[in-house]
């Protein structure tokens, strides 16, 4: 049973014909959006609200940009990898492969899924640049919003790089299939239904950064448990970046709640109702039509990213943005949105628990992944 019992999947998503004898779908947090509404909505922020973001430019320079790390102080993938310019390279590579041999296949499935997601970074930079009022108008705009987006992209770029090189050196995965998956995913893009609306967009990114921090934090923990401290440190470092990014995006929404509480709370409710789609929801490898769902199921079973995590993130954001105390300037609709949000996490948690209980009754099923040479893992 699926924790997506919390959400329905549209046809093009991973919710595909079931493999188990009960025809039950796996639980996962791949909180996929409900069936798409008939018309695509674009530019849903009223044009006059772009002014809000113009007025926040000074704030962004003061409070957002400092959350970026100067490049000179940043970690680089090389810091976690064998030094190819050193005569110790081969020795270090052998050590890496020895550690890699101790990690179970299901952890590789999750690492590959995470790496593929990170490697689709062009899609995410694009997505942010679809947003009205904050897009990078030239590709090198000095506007603080644009500076943030480019620098954020630059920091994120290292995540896919380090995971890619690590997986390549490990010898444990079919890199060609992984690379194909990346190519497919970048070609597919993603549709988080943010409607060119930065209110929606920054709610999405706030949620997503936290989700990815949770996920990488868990893979770090698992890598360590299986004896690969270097990989654990790499994943943990990625998670730390994501937490810092989460802080940034949550601050933006906090400002929006201050300046336009009604518009902002409606935006938060809208994204939660639509559900936060996973960035790699259009993932495919040309072999498994249910790839994303299968990946999500493994992530659920390993505790890397679960339906409960989703509920926890909702709860965190409601607290972070002090929605329970949100009063002033709310329309009737805004109050209803606030109330919906304040009640949402416990409901999702209950539904997630129910889904997990039902899943326990199912026979575990074996799923093969092209990423690991068609070896099977249990999910």
């Amino acid at each position, binding site marked *: *049973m*699926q924790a*997506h*019992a*919390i*959400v*329905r999947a549209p046809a093009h998503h991973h919710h595909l014909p*079931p493999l188990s004898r*009960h*025809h*039950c*779908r796996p639980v996962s947090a791949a909180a996929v959006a*409900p069936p798409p509404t008939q018309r695509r909505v674009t530019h849903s922020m009223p044009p006059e609200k772009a002014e809000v973001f113009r007025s926040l430019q000074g704030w962004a320079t003061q409070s957002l940009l400092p959350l970026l790390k100067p490049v000179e102080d940043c970690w680089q993938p090389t810091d976690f990898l064998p030094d190819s310019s050193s005569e110790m390279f081969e020795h270090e590579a052998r050590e890496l492969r020895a550690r890699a041999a101790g990690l179970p296949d299901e952890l590789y499935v999750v690492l590959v899924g995470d790496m593929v997601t990170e490697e689709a970074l062009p899609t995410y930079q694009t997505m942010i640049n679809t947003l009205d009022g904050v897009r990078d108008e030239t590709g090198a705009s000095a506007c603080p919003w644009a500076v943030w987006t480019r620098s954020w992209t630059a920091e994120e770029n290292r995540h896919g790089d380090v995971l890619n090189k690590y997986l390549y050196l490990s010898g444990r995965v079919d890199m060609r299939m992984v690379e194909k998956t990346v190519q497919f995913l970048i070609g597919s893009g993603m549709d988080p239904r943010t409607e060119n609306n930065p209110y929606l967009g920054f709610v999405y990114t706030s949620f997503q950064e936290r989700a990815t921090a949770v996920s990488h934090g868990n893979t770090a923990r698992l890598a360590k448990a299986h004896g690969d401290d270097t990989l654990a440190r790499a994943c943990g470092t990625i998670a730390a970046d994501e937490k810092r990014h989460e802080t940034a995006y949550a601050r933006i929404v906090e400002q929006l709640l201050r300046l336009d509480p009604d518009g902002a709370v409606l935006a938060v409710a809208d994204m939660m*109702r639509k559900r936060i789609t996973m960035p790699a929801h259009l993932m495919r490898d040309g072999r498994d039509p249910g790839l994303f769902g299968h990946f999500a199921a493994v992530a659920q079973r390993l505790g890397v990213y679960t339906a409960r995590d989703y509920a926890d993130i909702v709860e965190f954001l409601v607290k972070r943005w002090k929605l329970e105390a949100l009063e002033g300037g709310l329309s009737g609709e805004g109050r209803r949105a606030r109330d919906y949000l304040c009640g949402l996490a416990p*409901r*999702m948690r*209950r*539904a997630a628990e*129910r*889904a997990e209980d*039902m899943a326990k009754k199912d026979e575990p099923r074996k799923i093969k992944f092209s990423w690991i040479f068609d070896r099977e893992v249990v999910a």
Partner: protein
Amino acid sequence: MGTTRRGLVSQRSPRFRVFCAAKPEMVSKVMGIVKQQLALSDDATLTPESKFADLGADSLDTVEIVMALEEEFKITVEEDNAQNITSIQEAADLIDKLVGEEGKAA
């Protein structure tokens, strides 16, 4: 729970379903639960054919409606059945079926 002891497989064609379907009291109970879940007013007009989605239910609401029905009627709804419940009539029919199976299994 959810036993496999089934009665006769229904030969009824779909267009007869409405007439041979669950008793009015069952439909009425389901309507009450749905109204509560979706915070509809007591005098909101629902029909057996009313679809949850048309009443404003999202997928979380549907899960919760199923959970409330499970609690009320002491049944367990399998996930694949839960996915197929989209209207009041469908819910009532499924409950009838599951309660009937419980009775036979007892």
